[in-house]
């Protein structure tokens, strides 16, 4: 027991004195506060309030003033829903969302012409529900006092199938993050390993340091692509099996044959929504997503791999690498912390900035692309990422040349930034 305590004290004493621990202890709270408050601050941007047209099957009861800071409600006291719908669609402005209550059936339909963000949808649905339960039903029609079933119909083309788009963006971003991090670290570990095993001198008498570094980076990239290709084939195979098994069942629930069912049953609505979701894959710009994924993945990996190669050259054991890997991986990690914000508002300032900054763009841009990003924006981000890659390779090769034969003491940050000096 005493020996365990001795080991514990030694381990604690060793690690608490490390520079990386001290830096993180101070930076940690600062970073977490930034993560919390930056999105809130950016979302406080004043934007135009959303115009919501309200109608119900008992329109005479829609006579309250429901307007708040986010929504301006326009109750429609009379008229048939089909006429109102037509007018709503033709209205060029001040007609963002149309809400129709069918009180007798306990359901609400929302037609969204503007393309609300996830946060805005959530807010509006809560407001709609409040109006329904606290105003319409409790005051006038208590016999219908159940929570209404809501159907959300996005009409803005780029906002249709928002759930799927978010999932797709998140999936691509996670895959990129995983591969960049995992294989980038492999580059670093390989170099540290070769230093530890003293193979470095044998290699360097045959190969220039730059060629050696690039050979390792590209070799590991090939491994990564092989694995990814294999995964893709597996997913396609699973998808084809799934489609073979369930495809017909899903496509049964199409508009033509459940029109009547929709008016009656909530379950059918859910089936319809599942049908919409499943069929929505056909609307995804898969080619664009695929090509962008490949480009951002390759360039992102190359950028990070060269940085990791430099870190590997600077140290001769894995423990010393930690002080250098944290600042390199922090941007990607922080991007993921902001992922929820980016996918809920892909055109926000934060999302746009992160999708241009090279260290965050591989993840941030993939989160945004499914929602529709213009070709010039993508091209600009790719250009910046490619430039950053070239610069990082140059810098890494300089560090590599200086550090790869150094043993016994890790290069310091001062050594790193003095590499340009003779």
């Amino acid at each position, binding site marked *: 027991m005493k020996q365990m305590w001795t080991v514990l004290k030694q381990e604690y004493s060793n690690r608490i004195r490390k520079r990386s621990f001290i830096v993180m202890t101070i930076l940690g709270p600062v970073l977490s506060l930034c993560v919390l408050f930056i999105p809130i601050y950016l979302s406080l941007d004043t934007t135009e309030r959303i115009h919501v047209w309200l109608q119900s099957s008992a329109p005479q009861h829609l006579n309250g003033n429901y307007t708040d800071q986010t929504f301006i409600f326009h109750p429609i006291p009379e008229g048939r829903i089909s006429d109102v719908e037509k007018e709503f669609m033709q209205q060029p402005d001040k007609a963002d969302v149309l809400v129709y209550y069918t009180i007798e059936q306990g359901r609400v339909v929302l037609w969204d012409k503007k393309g609300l963000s996830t946060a805005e949808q959530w807010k509006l649905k809560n407001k709609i529900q409040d109006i329904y339960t606290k105003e319409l039903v409790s005051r006038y029609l208590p016999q219908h006092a159940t929570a209404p079933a809501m159907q959300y119909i996005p009409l803005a083309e780029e906002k249709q199938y928002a759930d799927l788009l978010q999932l797709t963006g998140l999936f691509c971003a996670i895959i990129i993050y995983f591969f960049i991090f995992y294989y980038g670290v492999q580059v670093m570990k390989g170099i540290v390993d*070769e230093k530890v*095993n*003293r*193979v*470095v*001198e*044998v*290699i*360097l*008498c*045959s*190969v*220039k340091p730059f060629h050696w570094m690039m050979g390792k980076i590209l070799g590991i990239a090939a491994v990564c692509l092989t694995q990814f290709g294999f995964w893709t084939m597996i997913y396609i195979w699973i998808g084809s099996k799934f489609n073979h098994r369930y495809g017909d069942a899903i496509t049964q629930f199409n508009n033509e044959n459940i029109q009547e069912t929709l008016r009656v049953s909530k379950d059918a609505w859910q089936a319809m929504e599942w049908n919409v979701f499943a069929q929505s894959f056909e609307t995804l710009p898969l080619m664009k997503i695929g090509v962008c994924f490949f480009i951002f993945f390759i360039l992102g990996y190359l950028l990070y791999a060269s940085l990791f190669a430099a870190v590997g050259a600077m140290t001769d054991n894995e423990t010393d690498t930690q002080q250098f890997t944290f600042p390199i991986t922090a941007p990607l990690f922080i991007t993921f912390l902001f992922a929820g914000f980016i996918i809920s508002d892909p055109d926000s300032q934060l999302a746009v900035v992160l999708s241009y900054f090279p260290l965050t763009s591989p993840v941030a841009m993939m989160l945004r692309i499914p929602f529709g990003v213009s070709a010039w924006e993508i091209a600009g981000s790719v250009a910046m990422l490619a430039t950053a890659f070239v610069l990082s390779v140059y810098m890494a090769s300089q560090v590599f040349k200086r550090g790869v*034969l150094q043993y016994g003491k890790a290069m310091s940050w001062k050594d790193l930034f003095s590499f340009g000096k*003779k």
Partner: protein
Amino acid sequence: MAEILRIQNITKTFGTHVAIDQVSLSLKKNSILGLLGPNGAGKTTLLRLITQIVLPDSGQLFFNGSPLNESHRVKMGYLPEERGLYRKMRVQEQLMYFAQLRGLSAKEAKQQSSEWLQRLQIEHLHSQVLETLSKGQQQKIQFISAVVHKPELLILDEPFSGFDPANAEVIKNEILSLHQSGTTIIYSTHRMDTVEDVCTELLMINKAKVVLQGEPHAIRKQFDKGYVRLVYSGTLPTQLQSAIVEQRLLEGNKTSYLLSSSLDRKQLLQMLINQGEVHHFEEHLPSMHELFLDHVNKTNE
């Protein structure tokens, strides 16, 4: 004989530490250069400059008459003092990798590596993972990795380190065999006995500078103090009593002397024959070990 390597006034500094200071060398083809010096003298840095692992701050290096460049890497083989191989890789796979890095095709690499494994009698280890081998076996693999591509210039830094006497003899014979087939060799070591046996030229470095350079016998002759090794029966002439540097009694009423005399050796021999029985008489040149210690101490003063 043609020159394979010429070094002209190269200097290399690491920060404020001068590792090599104005070193020059001309190395003939098919010679064996012994590179001597104490720890930290600059030997390894010089070898790294020749193999282009590091670049000089000033001065030039020439290989086969042309300035040292990338294409010369594959014509050199290097066995570093700090042994290093991929521990998790199989033996032949590793040798083939190094051979291909140095310009051989896959087929040639396989053929050459197999031949060398047979020559060193370790062909049965070809598919073993390196970390399962003994230290001596790993050293042999490392040696093969330096020679597998038939380099014109072979650079060996302490090649016998880690070998038992039997295996050291095997490696020495292979080095001599390579020399006989035309390979030029630079051989860095602290083992003075092997230097005297093997080397055709010497370069001694201390504190980044050259302190001795030339053919071994010529260097020893240069520092000849006039010593004579004598095995003698009888009373030594009186005038030689003060010339005794060393004296040792042997069996059979013989005495071994080391004499330091200014007399001509013929005269000295005649004098000794007249007074007693001479069993052995030879000029005693300083050994490389003695020269090494003398010069290191002198430089350090």
